[in-house]
């Protein structure tokens, strides 16, 4: 399967703590993206990192990419209850405009 694998499947932390989720894939990629999905809603694009980039920041988000290990991680710092959602990595592998999604990490942030 070309699907990305994410771990952990579920993560429960307290508000203020950092959350780290990881994504691994099997093929060469053009870019890797992270999305958030709140319960019962559509996916929201968070951040995109290109294959020639190693790290990217956006607000409280930090994404790293290691193409030699075919893996990426998403760090959310100083988490808030509103960060409770499922997080998906997605990658683009070729000339077709197709994103292949990972299996997702369910993040629960408690007060």
């Amino acid at each position, binding site marked *: 399967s070309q*699907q990305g694998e994410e771990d952990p499947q579920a993560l429960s932390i307290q508000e203020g703590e950092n959350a780290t989720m990881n994504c691994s894939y099997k093929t060469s990629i*053009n*870019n890797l*993206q992270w*999305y958030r*999905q709140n319960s*019962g*809603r*559509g*996916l*929201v*694009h*968070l951040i*995109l990192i290109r294959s020639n980039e190693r790290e990217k920041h956006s607000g409280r988000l930090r994404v790293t990419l290691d193409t030699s290990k075919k893996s990426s991680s998403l760090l959310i710092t100083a988490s808030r209850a509103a960060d409770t959602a*499922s997080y*998906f990595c997605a990658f*683009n592998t*070729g*000339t*077709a*405009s*197709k*994103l*292949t*999604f990972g*299996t*997702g990490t369910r993040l629960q942030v408690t007060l």
Partner: protein
Amino acid sequence: DTAVSQTPKYLVTQMGNDKSIKCEQNLGHDTMYWYKQDSKKFLKIMFSYNNKELIINETVPNRFSPKSPDKAHLNLHINSLELGDSAVYFCASSQGGAGPTYGYTFGSGTRLTVV
């Protein structure tokens, strides 16, 4: 204004029926997609259209037929619905048919339940 809008939001229908889901985007994007999310939250691409031309057609039963009358609309028609078709169907759009350099914009989804 909603960027990618899908209708209906919920659809409950009996096995064997034919149904359609509509999608419209007002972002000026040139590429639109249909994704299926199953009960385990796994997202799988079904179809992609770039400027009304079909560019991705994954292994999807031919009971599913997409139609793109213009680049702002992508509809999905499903014939002879089966229990296994129950899922959430997401429409999305992006700019750049040769590989998205920006993120997708997703609709809020259509929850299809076949009984």
